[in-house]
């Protein structure tokens, strides 16, 4: 049971979460609205000392969240492709066939973070996130309760990180239920870490 997945607001990042840290390192096309002294070297396309007004750079989300904050407005930013009009239309047409991992891989979480910043398409994007998950939900559920069929790993590849986690939860329940049906659920077994550790040692000594 993962009970501390996110804060209750759903918009705050979990400070210690590896996923959230990776998610917030994804980049956004940004434009500097103010000059930045001495940090020109961050822009690989020039060798100027400072960053001039109007400089375009792809900045990581963690920096955008600070610099594009309505109180500062040091930069303007644009949504990346998956959150823009064309893609929203594709998702609207049939969300369940889209490879969210390729355009994600943190499609929902990254989108939710973008919603904390003002953008003229934010409402359409917010709705798109809800609808996309709603449309994909049935498939993820049906896949996750089906015994490991050959194409399961292929299916998984098209899922965003949150969806993958859901899929794994479903698979895990299925496996423990099947174990129960075979009367194995209450047998004592060696710990997972121990087995893995032993296996690795064996592999290494071979």
């Amino acid at each position, binding site marked *: 049971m993962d009970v501390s997945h996110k804060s209750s607001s759903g918009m705050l990042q979990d400070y210690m979460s590896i996923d959230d840290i990776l998610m917030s390192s994804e980049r956004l096309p940004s434009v500097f609205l103010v000059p930045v002294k001495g940090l020109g070297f961050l822009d690989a396309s020039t060798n100027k000392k400072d960053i001039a007004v109007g400089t375009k750079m792809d900045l990581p989300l963690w920096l955008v969240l600070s610099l594009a904050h309505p109180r500062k407005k040091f930069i303007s930013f644009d949504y990346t492709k998956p959150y823009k009009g064309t893609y929203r239309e594709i998702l609207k047409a049939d969300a369940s066939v889209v490879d969210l991992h390729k355009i994600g891989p943190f499609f929902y979480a990254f989108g939710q973070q973008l*919603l904390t910043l*003002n953008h003229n398409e934010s*409402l359409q994007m917010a709705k798109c996130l809800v609808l996309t998950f709603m449309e994909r939900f049935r498939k993820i559920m049906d896949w996750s309760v089906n015994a490991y069929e050959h194409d399961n790993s292929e299916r998984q590849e098209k899922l965003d990180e949150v969806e993958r986690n*859901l899929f794994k*939860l479903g698979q*895990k329940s299925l496996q*423990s*239920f099947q174990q129960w049906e075979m009367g194995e*659920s209450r047998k004592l077994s060696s710990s997972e870490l121990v087995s893995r550790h032993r296996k690795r040692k064996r592999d290494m000594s071979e």
Partner: protein
Amino acid sequence: MEPGDVEFIAEKELVKIVPNFALGKIYFISGDVGPFSPGLPVDVPLWLAIAIKQRQKCRVHPPEWLDVDKIETMKDDEIASEFFTELPNPHFCEVAQLLLTHATDNIPNADLLRTLIKDIWDIRAAKLRSNIDKFVKLQAGHARLDNLSQMEINTIRPFLTASLDHMYQLRISQSYTERNMSTQ
């Protein structure tokens, strides 16, 4: 919770056994059981019935509902009904499974029963999935699920609650955005 935990809880259900030994009342922490006299039926918790049966010291009386005719009717009702039908025991699946494993020789048509029960499980599971999908599409915040057994709940729980948690967060984000837009 693991299926083993749900089964463990189901083992508190009472079942009738016919002992082949004599023994006075046993004062368990969970309550008194017995006395036991050869040939005289007595109600005991399932965990105890299994333990005694394993020592070949009793015959188990399957509950009334664990019967081919009754289970077949149940299956038909389940197919016919849009909703979940009421189960004869809140731990229907677990109790049946335990008895069919540990007291097979005391249950007539055990193999057929096993198949029928699996059918009922599958019918209900499919029903549950389409209900859940409706629930998610309606963006409902709440559902009433009266006749679901604990094992059924337990099997779908990790996936379902995590999905709903995710959905809720997305809806929060949406309503935050709506509020934000209207105040601009």
